[in-house]
């Protein structure tokens, strides 16, 4: 497997380059390993990027990036492939149990710089 390694990973800026934008298929996630953390990265149909925790809080397995992407109402969503809970990709909230903080996915900053997808350090505070 020949993935082009990303260019400089600049810890000083707090952003880690994980892949080229065109490596992401619309509506199909990938997992990225950032500082030992597993992060699920999604490119949506409209081209926007989202990054949430790869760990499924229900099963404890690291599988969120492999879930089906879709919408619920206006919310872009991913459904866990394990037990099918649906999460809002913008907030990480589990739409099947919005009041349960234990079922919330951490949301990570993600940005496009030139043609590269970068993940920001730390999770966005919910």
């Amino acid at each position, binding site marked *: *497997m020949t*993935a082009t390694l990303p260019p400089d990973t600049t810890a000083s800026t707090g952003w880690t*380059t*994980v892949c080229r934008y065109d490596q992401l298929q619309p509506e199909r996630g990938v997992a990225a*390993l*950032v500082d030992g953390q*597993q992060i699920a990265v999604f490119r949506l149909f409209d081209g926007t990027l989202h990054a949430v925790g790869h760990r499924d809080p229900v099963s404890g397995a690291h599988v969120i990036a*492999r879930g*089906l992407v879709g919408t619920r109402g206006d919310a872009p969503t991913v459904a866990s*492939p394990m037990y099918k809970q649906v999460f809002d990709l913008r907030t990480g909230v589990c739409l099947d149990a919005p009041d349960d903080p234990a079922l919330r996915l951490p949301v990570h900053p993600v940005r496009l710089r030139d043609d590269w997808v970068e993940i920001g350090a730390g999770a966005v505070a919910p």
Partner: protein
Amino acid sequence: MSTPAPRQLVVVGGGMVAHRLVEALVDRGGVADGGWQVTVLAEEPRAPYDRVALTSYFSGRDPQDLALGDPALWDTPGVQLRRGVQVTEVDRAARVVRTAGGREHGYDALVLATGSAPFVPPVEGKDLPGCFVYRTIDDVAALRQYVTEVDTRRKDSTHPRPVTGAVVGGGLLGLEAAGALTALGVQTHVVEFAPRLMPLQVDEGGGEALQRLVGALGVQVHAGTATAKLTAGRDGRVARMHAAEGSAAGLTHLDVDVVVFAAGVRPRDELARACELPVGPRGGVVVDPTCRTEDPAVWAIGEVACLDGRTWGLVAPGYTMAEIVADQLLGGAAEFPGADLSTKLKLLGVDVASFGDAFGTSPGALSVVYGDPVAGVYKKLVLSDDARTLLGGILVGDASAYAGLRPLVGRELGGDPAAWLLPEGAEGGPASAELPDDAAVCSCNNVTAGSIRDAVRCDGCTDLGAVKACTKAGTSCGSCLPLVKKLVTTELAAAGVSVSSALCEHFDVSRAQLFDVVRVTGITSFSELVDRHGRGRGCDICKPVVASILASLDSGHVLDGERATLQDTNDHVMANIQKDGTYSVVPRIPGGEVTPEGLIAIGEVARDFGLYTKITGGQRIDLFGARMELLPAIWERLVAAGFESGHAYGKSLRTVKSCVGSTWCRYGVQDSVALAIALELRYRGLRSPHKIKLGVSGCARECAEARGKDVGVIATDNGWNLYVGGNGGFTPRHAKLLAEDLDTETLVRTIDRFLVYYVRTADRLQRTAPWLEEIEGGLDHVRAVVLDDSLGIAADLDAAMADHVEGYTDEWRATLEDPEKLRRFASFVNAPDSPDPSLSYVVERGQPRPSTAAERTAGEAAGAVLVAGPRLEVFSR
């Protein structure tokens, strides 16, 4: 305050009516916890079963298929079922019953539900070997065994001739028995004393139509004939039936091998007689409208009760009596409202229905009759003297109007009565939607149109299944189901409920409708489909459905282009996700046949990749613990050894299970393995609404458990019997017979059509059993479609399957050959070969398994290194 000791209820008899009594008591919370302690003393060695469906036991059903209701009823605390118990005495003074085993059961309330015994006319020779009655599973089993024995002896003899049987009695029970004998391949005669068949249910015209229809099925009817005596042959078994003098058509005798007495029943009222309870003039324990006997502590229900001066030989009034007693035992005041003696039956495949005042005995009654001797149909409606109100009717040959007509008895029919009799106007009838709330729709369980509407309006039932569970409508004989379904649909529509058929928030149509949309429009992508016929960007419900539909309509690779985004992870990576996020891999092993080299290859792959191996229920081998990034390497090894994807991950054909068949087995009559392999290779990769499993057994011993499959094939001496609609799982079902003695070519064509028709019309995640139940017209309809091309689509179905077979490719191999697809198997986009660092395993019984949370904590605390995990030794590509 102490709880009062529970009161003791003893039920003598373990039939359908006893079952209903206990069910009603439990349902109303009347058992245990200060209520009743129930003891049911059943003479038969089994739990109550569906005696009405006894004949179906001949078409290959198990006794278990006749089970009534939820078997957990008998595990209810406070309910005790004692089987094989003969009650010998009721001591009313001491309030105890005594059994043949010397036990005593004290009671506060006693219910006699002893039912009836077959009536055997007192003719000479009635006890000869080869003479049977027709009442219990044991009777039926004994009859079957005897016929099989005679048949085997015949086949081995120098003058083979078919087994011949006579049924004494041409009523309802007699025709049931004749059906059973015919199903066993017996040349059957029916001897009826009255001048026509079913004299209690149908009139002369109906009887004639019935006799013609039954005769066309090879059953010879001798009406107006009395049996004088039976004589034995040299072997001491029954050999000849002698007709009484003056019998119609001058019949003197019949040479027979087996005789079944089905000339009516007599109430089992001997216990009541012995304890001096009053009995009716023609038998039966006399009860008042509350079903209570002269003794206030003793009740009688079902066929043994004599109520209104007569006994009641149908299950519906029996059920009503059971409900009444349950109500009375709980302090209610229910009384017998009179019974509906309507019947609708399929005897020997012939529809017969009789309802209300079938004989037109009401003063001034008029009859409208429609007869078509060519089509074998006779229909009669009995109307009031002004020809407006329906009083009753008889339907022979086509009883489809029954469900709509019966609830209208006593009501104005509206419009031209003849419209109900003509073939077009029949189904459901014009007036079903306006049926008054108090009209009884299900007479077996006494459910009115109003209760069905309430179930939808008030109890939130949104489909037929829920309404059946809630009201019990249609759960006994099922003849009212078309009407129940219609009422439910109408009521749902009235309530504005449309959710039931909408797939999800993105599509307002059902899977079957969406299938048609895609087929007609030729749309090939999800984006275009959701754009034009839906909204939003889909979800985990509609996306896999669309993927499956697209896969059914053209045979592109499941990971082509946008389609890859529609697939659930299992379909996406072509393996089955497990609880830790790794996958299991199942190579196809068609028919469960595998060479030693194949087994060794699989073993080597498992060993080299550190996979846990287990034999599956579908006769293949599952390899667990494969990390996503290793799947291509594993497939490469398997494909090199000649294996391909087993589609264990897909809503598609799984396996065709087989027994070893005639090539090795001394009992096998056909080569089941060869057929199973051929079928598995034909249908591999076929995408469907749910998984599909097949089975092929090489003889009637059924070692492949084919009847637990969606499509089951069982070898016969003459070919193959085809069963459909079976499954295991949460709600196990036995497959039902679709066709008999097919040659291999016809069999394959029939399965082709069945599968394509299912794929096209079933709902999402609907397996074949519920599909067959839901589809309009049920199994008969599907049989007509696939065997007689009733919809004119057979050529289309055949072409669809031919396309599938032609277009099949192994998805694993296709993926390995495409670097673009392989990219998807990277564990991390920025570290494609790094394993998931959270995985860890322990060894158990010599194989790895995921560690538990407790084991991880303990392992980390002790600083121990868990086996395998990311350090698992792997084969490197």
